[in-house]
């Protein structure tokens, strides 16, 4: 899958060496990369060799660059200069200078896995490894800005370091853009390639779509003006293991029987699958069903559990935007009404210091015009309902009781409770809806970007491109309805039972939710979805 017009750089953790060839082929077909980096800094020649068997585009493993510590690869519209290790960064100056530069519109990025951050809590200090080398390199190549990708940091890392040109001393760090800097500074945008915390033992794989920023409104200060879109997936979501119920052991057993792909799995009769250890008839049915969903892109329902609102009036599709994961304001509430295909947004454009008015007007409207409608969200129990409830209690307490009684429904929760199988490798709304054929309006935004933009508005008064940010919220509401409809129409898996997952998901579980509390345990709770940064 190619995201956007830019070049796709795929970052593979070295543990992919342990994945089967068909699984890697699935990775290849899914991401369709222009170049593959098996990330360091540890030397893993086997992993690189295995990747080369599968991928046609260049496969680079920086630690192997003994003969050629600085290499350059041109991937479509992007030049990538890979440096073997931090100590030889300065040797990259020439290559960097000759790489096609800003003049002809070809952006350049540097890859060096030794660039990383060192956190020293006792000194309350985070420093950037190789900072002085990077500053010297930028000066050498006569650049004010440089983008560095590194396997030494997780793919969620995107920070822009302003360094003093002479010494590499840190002048400030922005996310992603820094505060304006002086002439004696260079700006280094550091973006991670590495595995992201919270994924399983197989680690995560990230694909970076890198392009020149086309819609640079408030992002204008970004180094090299690059837009980097990251897609991160669990490395065991490929090949047979993408199918629910197939873990590494079962995958291995299947492969021994010559079943290496999902289509081969589909061709295998259910009865035969039941012969596998620890696989019962229900499990085998479900494997089949999920393999089919993934292969065909068609969703399936697994239970007779009714979709809430299915037999009555459809619910209102809701999405909120905040200024961060621990919000101080819910500055946008978007509601899509499928009955008349209308969309309504409540936005705070003038006084971000007062969270009250948006909440008040949303409640006025909702309770005034739709007192009897249910609400529907994607992952609302962990985000939208949770924060809206808190803000209603605080800023519109007179509506608190009414808010409690409104039927609330979380399609995400209903699906993950085992009521349906959806295509898409993650449960992110964007992933699921696009796998189900939804075409969004390509705002180029995500939850974090829109939150960051609003934060800047709060601090500096710099207006957002309101239309674009409102379009983003509307897009999510409509995407949700698209998913809802596709699920509603989806066929049921034959012979499946009527019991849903563990609980009735259709009605309001206000305040109960299923957020686990796991005191004493240190692993992040299983039901905590990684990458579901839906804000």
């Amino acid at each position, binding site marked *: 899958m190619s995201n956007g017009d830019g070049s796709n750089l795929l970052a593979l953790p070295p543990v992919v060496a342990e994945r089967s060839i068909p699984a890697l082929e699935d990775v290849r077909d899914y991401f369709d990369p222009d170049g593959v980096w098996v990330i360091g800094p540890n030397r893993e020649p086997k992993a690189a060799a295995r990747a080369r068997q599968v991928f046609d585009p260049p496969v680079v493993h920086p630690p192997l660059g003994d003969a050629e510590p600085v290499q350059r690869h041109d991937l479509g519209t992007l030049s990538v200069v890979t440096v073997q290790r931090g100590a030889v960064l300065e040797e990259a100056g020439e290559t960097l200078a000759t790489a096609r530069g800003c003049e002809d519109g070809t952006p350049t990025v540097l890859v060096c896995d030794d660039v990383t*951050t*060192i*956190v*020293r*809590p*006792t*000194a*309350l*200090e*985070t*420093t*950037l490894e190789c*900072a002085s080398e990077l500053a010297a390199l930028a000066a050498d190549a006569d650049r004010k800005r440089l983008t560095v990708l590194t396997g030494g*940091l*997780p793919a*969620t890392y*995107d*920070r822009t*370091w302003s360094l003093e040109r002479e*010494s590499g001393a*840190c002048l400030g*760090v922005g*996310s992603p853009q820094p505060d304006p800097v002086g002439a004696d500074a260079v700006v280094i945008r550091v973006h*991670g390639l590495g595995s*992201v*915390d*919270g994924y399983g033992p197989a680690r995560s794989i990230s694909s970076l779509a890198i392009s020149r920023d086309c819609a640079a409104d408030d992002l204008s200060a970004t180094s090299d003006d690059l837009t980097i879109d990251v897609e991160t997936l669990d490395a065991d979501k490929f090949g047979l293991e993408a199918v629910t119920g197939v873990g590494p052991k079962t995958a291995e057993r299947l492969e021994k029987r010559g079943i290496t792909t999902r289509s081969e799995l589909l061709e295998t009769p259910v009865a035969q699958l039941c012969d596998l250890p620890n696989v019962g008839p229900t499990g085998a049915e479900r494997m089949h069903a999920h393999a089919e969903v993934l292969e065909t892109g068609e969703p399936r329902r697994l239970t007779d559990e009714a979709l809430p609102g299915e037999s009555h009036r459809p619910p209102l599709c809701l999405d909120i935007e905040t*200024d*961060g*994961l*621990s*919000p*101080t304001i819910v500055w946008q509430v978007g509601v899509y009404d499928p009955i008349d295909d209308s969309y309504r947004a409540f936005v705070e454009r003038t006084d*971000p210091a007062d969270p009250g008015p948006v909440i008040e007007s949303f409640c006025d409207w909702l309770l005034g015009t739709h007192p009897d409608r249910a609400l529907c969200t994607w992952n609302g129990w962990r985000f939208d309902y*949770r924060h809206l*409830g*808190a803000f209603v*209690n605080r800023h519109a307490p007179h509506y608190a009781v009414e808010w409690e009684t409104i039927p609330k429904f979380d399609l995400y929760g209903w699906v993950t409770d085992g009521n349906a199988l959806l295509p898409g490798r993650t449960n992110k709304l964007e992933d699921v809806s696009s796998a189900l054929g939804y075409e969004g309006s390509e705002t180029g935004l995500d939850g*974090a970007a829109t*939150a*960051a933009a609003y*934060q800047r508005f*709060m*601090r500096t008064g710099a207006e957002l491109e309101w239309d674009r940010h409102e379009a983003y919220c509307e897009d999510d509401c409509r995407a949700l309805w698209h998913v809802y409809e596709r699920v509603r129409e989806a066929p049921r898996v034959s012979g499946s039972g009527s019991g849903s997952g563990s609980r009735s998901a259709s009605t309001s579980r206000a*305040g*109960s*939710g299923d*957020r*686990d*509390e*796991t*005191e*004493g*345990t*240190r*692993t*992040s*709770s299983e039901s*905590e979805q*990684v990458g579901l940064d839906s804000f």
Partner: protein
Amino acid sequence: MNQHTDTDANADATNIPVTGEELVDTYPSYREEADVSLVDLPGRPAETVPGETVLRPDLAGPLEHDLYSHQAEALEALANDENVCVATSTASGKTLVYGLQIARNYLAARRRGEESTAYVCYPTKALSRDQERELNDLFDDLGLEIDVAVYDGDTERGEPRKRIREEADVVISNFAGVNTYLHDHDRWARFFAACDLLVIDESHTYTGVHGMHVAWIVRRLKRVLAYYGSDPQFVLTSATIGNPGAHSSALIDEPVTVVDEDGSPQGPRDLVLWNPPMRTGEEANGVDAISDDATAASASTGRASDDDPPERLPATIEAPQVFSHLTYHDAQTLLFTPSRKLAELSIERAGEHRRRRDRYYLTPDRGTALEPYHAGHSRKKRHGTEHHLKNGLLDGVASTNALELGINVGAMDATVQMGYPGQRQSFWQQIGRAGRGERRALSVLVAEHRTLDQYVVSHPEFLLETDVEDAVVDVDNDAVFAQHVRCAADELALDERDVGEFAKRERLEGALEMWRRAGQVRGHLETGVSYTGSPRPQSSISLYATAGQEYEVRLAEGVDERYDPEMEPLARERVFRDFHEGAVRLHAGQQYEVCEVDHDAPQPYVAVRPTNVDYYTQTRSEVTILDAESEESREIDDTGFDLHYGTGTVLVYHGTYDKVAVHGGKPKDQAIPTDNPPLQMETQLCWLEVPQDVERHLVEEYREYSVPELESEADLGPIPHIGYMGGLHAAEHAMIGVAPLELTLDKRDLGGLSTLTIDSHLAMDAPSAAETPGDDRAPRSIEAARATVRQLSNALEREPASGWFVYDGIEGGLGFSRAIYDEFEALARRAREHVADCDCGRIDGCPACVMDEQCGNDNVPLHRDAAVDIFDRLLGEGDSLEAADTADSERERRPTLFYS
């Protein structure tokens, strides 16, 4: 000491089944008179106040008894909107104070038509369950329908939890739970919005690393409560500690009124300090195969030679016998043991004692209803034991400190302690278990052969001094602070309102900038900072470690679960020192070999398997200190000694270990590599600089002393400084050894280094490396560090000072060095007294005075007399030095020697 002067309180002395004197007279074996001392503690009558004076009639009416004066005082302060810390004796009715306050708040809210809730935190789950019953009984008696519920890891998930959050008036939990639940504070909106009271029970248990975490969890809880519009009052209950006010304020970051005038009655008490007899040769070789690891290590410290210091029988053998003897004589007795295994074993040993002495104990079955008690038992079993103690079905119980905290088991006739529990507050808390009302009680302390115990039995007045240890809680550790900043940002965006409230601006900004650069938070204080790292930062907090994770101790694969050592998780520092691969540790009477250490697993762990070998292992450590920076300094009373407090880098290298024969302590195999890298810590330090004239005098005085093995090993030839150096080294050990007498700490959390060249361990003023990032200066190996110190030493322009460092052995520090800096003279006085009074008669001391089982240099060199001399000088008690100062002094080259 009172010798039977308080006749009133002695009136009912006859009530006691056995008196201290009778114990000594009847005990069936000969002992040196000097080994046992009897102390008579007078009793005191109750001081009471009628309930109506402080309570409204609807509460005072149903109360069956008057209030003790301290309860009334606390309730009055609470009525004045003050926070209160009640620091009175065991069983003085502290629960009633907050129970009544909850009832008061409940009634007041009911009159207003509102709700009032209270959050009550106990240190253990067992105590939570016990106190739930107590509170329910109280509210029943008061005729109030207050809904009390325990909400912790054992509470059933789903509906039961939801019901508690949505309905309970009083929620009982612990701080590990609070830390976790704060993430989902929105689900607690009702409970938090109505919260009028926060109770921290047994607050004295929150010290050291654990205390710092609790202090930050309380601050996070307060932020969230403020968000829901609550500003609750605090009640803290504490055992008697030296600084209840300061400690409580540090925990909750608010002023606290201390109530410590105990109005509960107390019977007189016979206190027996019981030093076991010297081992005979046979016993010494028979080895106390079963003792906990601390005693085993100390019992075997020292080099193998025929003149090993004499040892006493361990308390682990002696205490169960005393226990058995008391129950035979009809005294219901509680024996406190330092481990679960020893609790179990003590029951067996008590029985054995009877059988071995069957000619003395003629009625073998008398007083033999004995049970062990510890947290490893099921709740049901523990409950049964508690119950049987209360109604007299049991004659005795051997318990870990699980029964030290306030679980209600009624009052015993007698207590026996297997070794000094380490702290006076703990000592008093435990013996407080004996004595009903104003009846006479008996308490026996059976001493171990180690520094603290021997100090206590030879200085009984120490126990009776009014000053108890200070509890140390330090919120200056940035490593711990930074972890809680992430959690706070996750719970509610951090913003300007948190400046000054949660932390000072500079510190808060510093931590946020650190996390921002690390990609863990977004945003600015002006508009709010959110956490953006992986979900639930709360789960990465481990309440017993400062940085990073603790190591779990698990059984190696395939080993029978029965052998599970059930050890608390270990801090990284501890793993490097004592749990390297190949280490043999004695835990709760069982030898374990460490077969695997995984530092990189998501949950790092140490895998052990039970073993049975004739050796134990001893790690050789090298320590050095670099870049110490003084933040505060003072001269000690015009003596010329300078004392500093500051921070620095400590490098500890547990590079090799020895296998030492259990029998005779001879090394079997030496210098086996641990394959551990050196540990580097940024931590807090305190150091003493000895003035030049004192040093010259003492070097001269002890220049004849020599340690040949040392001089040949280091290839240095005769070193005139070695006697003096031994004095510094011994003084440093003694200071660390007695620190727990003044401060609530585990001495394993402290380290020391004595040195002839303090200056070479200090941060230099104008190092060329100043501009490069700090990390580059830190040496990667201990050899490099030592070389750096030597090099710095050679480059010094002035003659360096000698002295010693004491450091906090935990990344970021614990506040202990700081407390030692503040209490230095008092500690030095204790240390001097102890070293001078030890009757081991050896220049290099014994495990009871200056030897330390943790010494990385195998307790060489040590010189007791020189140490006493140093202490005398620094306490201003030495002779004048005018004559001794040989100004000519050929200026011997000073070697760069340092010993940990």
